[in-house]
C-alpha cells in the first residue's frame, strides 16, 4: 500500500488535526472557568484536563499521520445525495420552527432521502412518506403518549 503517490501530505488529515486542536483548546478554556469546591482535589476540572490533554496529543498524532500520508485511501464522492439528505433534515427543522408540524416535515425528509438514493418519483415518495409519518405519529402520540411537534395536519388527527 505504500506507493509513492500514497505518501503525500494529506490536507484533509491536517484539517482533522486542527479541529482536534481547537476542541482541546475549547475544553481547556471551559475548564478554567470552573470553580473548585474542595481544597484538596481538582473536582470537576480533572476530567476536562485529561480530555483536553488527550485531544491535544491526538491532534499531534493525526497531524503526523497526515504528513506521512497514512490516511486510508478514499473513494470519489457524490455530493448531490448528501445535499439532498441534509436539505431534507433542514426542511424538517424549518417546518417545526414555523409550526408546520412534524408529519409534513418527515414526509419531505422521506422523499428527499429516497431521491438521494436514486428514486425518480418525488411525489409518490412524498405520499408514502406522508402515510408512514401519520402511522408513526399515531403510534407515538396515541399509543406511547410521547409528544411530537404539532402543526395543521397533526391537529386534524
Amino acid at each position, binding site marked *: 500500500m505504500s506507493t509513492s503517490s500514497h505518501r503525500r501530505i494529506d490536507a*484533509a488529515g491536517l484539517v482533522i488535526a486542527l479541529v482536534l486542536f481547537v*476542541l482541546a483548546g*475549547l*475544553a481547556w478554556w*471551559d*475548564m478554567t472557568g470552573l*470553580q473548585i*469546591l*474542595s481544597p*484538596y*482535589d*481538582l*473536582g*470537576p476540572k*480533572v*476530567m*476536562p484536563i485529561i480530555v483536553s490533554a*488527550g*485531544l491535544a496529543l*491526538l491532534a499531534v*498524532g*493525526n497531524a503526523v*499521520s497526515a504528513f506521512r500520508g*497514512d490516511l*486510508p485511501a*478514499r*473513494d*470519489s*464522492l*457524490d455530493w448531490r*445525495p*448528501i445535499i439532498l*439528505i*441534509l436539505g431534507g*433534515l433542514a426542511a*424538517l*427543522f424549518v417546518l*417545526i420552527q414555523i409550526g408546520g408540524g*412534524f408529519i409534513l416535515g*418527515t414526509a419531505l*425528509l*422521506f422523499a428527499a*432521502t*429516497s*431521491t*438521494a*438514493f*436514486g*428514486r425518480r418519483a418525488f411525489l409518490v*415518495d412524498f405520499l408514502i*412518506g406522508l402515510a*408512514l*409519518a401519520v402511522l*408513526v*405519529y399515531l403510534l*407515538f402520540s396515541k399509543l*406511547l403518549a*410521547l*409528544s*411530537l411537534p404539532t402543526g395543521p395536519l397533526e391537529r386534524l388527527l
Partner: protein
Amino acid sequence: MEAFMSLGHGLTVAIQPMNLLFALIGVLLGTAVGVLPGIGPALTVALLLPITFKLDPAGSIIMFAGIYYGGMYGGSTTAILINTPGESASMATALEGNLMAKAGRGGPALATAAIGSFVAGTIATLGLTLLAPYLVDIAVSFGPEDYFALMCVAFVTVSATFGDSPVRGLTSLFIGLLLGLVGIDILSGQSRLSFGVPELYDNIEVTTLAVGLFAVGEALYVASRRHIHEEKLEAVRGSLWMTREDWKRSWKPWLRGTLYGFPIGALPAGGAEIPTFLSYATEKRLTKHPEDFGKGAIEGVAGPEAANNAAAAGTLVPLLTLGLPTSATAAMMLAGFQQYGLNPGPLLFADRPDLVWGLIASLFIANAMLLVLNLPLVGLWVRLLAIPQPWLYAGILVFATMGTIAANPSPVELMMLTVFGVLGFLMRRFDFPIAPVVVGLILGPVAESQLRRALSISLGDPMVLLQSPISATLLFIALVALVAPFFLKGLGRFKAVED
C-alpha cells in the same frame, strides 16, 4: 450450584407472559434489523430507549438483550446472501458464506449459521451463568480507583488495541469523552461546555448521538457512494437442510468458534470481530477439505458464526458484573439500565437478583426462539432484503428523527442529530471507528465519577491509582494494550488478515 439456584429463580421471572412477549419482540426486531443493511442492534436499542422509558425495566432490558442476540443471527443472513455484512462481526461469515450461496448452497450455509449460533449462544450463556457469580465476588472488593483503572483498560482495548489505527481509535474515544463532559456536573452543580444553551445542560442524549452517528451518518455515507457499487442478492436455492456430511463438518467448528468467542468477548478485549477471524483462520488450517476454501466451505461459515454469537454472550459478562460495555450495543444496553437508575455491577446482583437472573434466563429462551425463527422462517426474513434501498434508508431516517424528537422535543435536538450525522459520515469516510465514541459518551461520566471518588478519598493524591495493587495492575495492562499496537503492527491486522 448457587448459580443454578439463581438461574432457576430467574427462569420464573423470564417465563412470565409479559417477559416472554418482550423477549419475542426483541428477537423479532433484532433479527429484522440484523438482516436489513444500514441498521444494527446498537441503533435499534438507541431508538427504543425513549419509547421504553415508561415500561417495566426487566421487560425492556430483556427486549434489548433479545435485540442483541437477534441482531447476531440476522446479520449472518445478510452476510451470506448479499455479501454485505450488516455488522463487522459478520465479515468473516461473508467470506465463505456468500461463496456457498453463489454455488447454490445458501440453504445449508444459513442452517449451519443458525444452528451454530444456537449452540454457541447456549454454551456461552451457560458460561455467563457460571462465571458471573465469581466475577461479582471479585468485583465487590473493588474500590473506586480499581473501577477507574478497569475502565481505562476497556477504553484502550475498545479504541486502540485491535483497530486499524490506534491514533484514529483513540481520537474517536476522546471525542466521545469530550461529549460526555457536556452538561451540568452533578457533583459540583456547574455546567461544562454548555455555552449557555439550555438543551446542553441535561447532557448529550445517548439516543441523539447514537442515532446521528449510526442512522444519519450511515445513510449519508451509503448515499454518497451509491455510484460505486451495487449489491446483488443471491436467492436461496436448494435444500435448506444440512446433509449428514454438513453436520459432520460443522460441529467441531461450532465448538471451536465458541471457545474463541466467549473468552475474548468476556475479557474487555473489544468486540466480536477478532474471534470470528481467529476462528476463520483456524478452520482454514484444520479443515480436511482445504480445496473448498475459496469456493464456499461450510467450516468457514460454522466457525465464525459460532464465535460471533459466543462473543456477543461473552460481552454481557463484563457488562452485567462490572458495568463495563465493550461494544456499541453493550454500551447502549448500559444506557438502557441507566435510564431506570440501575447500575450493572455487583450491587445489582445483590439488589435486583430477579432482574439480573431473569435477564440471563431469558437469554436461553431468546436463543431457542431465534433457532425456531431462523431455521424454518428464513425465507420470510430474506423478503426484507427486497425492500428497495431508497425506501429503506428514507424509512430509517424518518424513524430516526421521530425517535430523537420524541425523546426530546426541541429543534436543538434535531440540529444536534444532523451535526452528529455529518460527524458519523466524516468518520466513516476517514475510517475512524464509531463504537468508541458511543462507549466514551456513556462510560466517560461513569469513569469520571469513580476517579473523583478515588481522588476525594485520597485527598487529591493521584498516587492512589498506583497504591492499590488491583488498580496498578489494571493500569499496567491498559498501558501495555495502548503501546502494543505501535510495536506489533500485526495486531491490528486481524480484520485484514484474510482479505
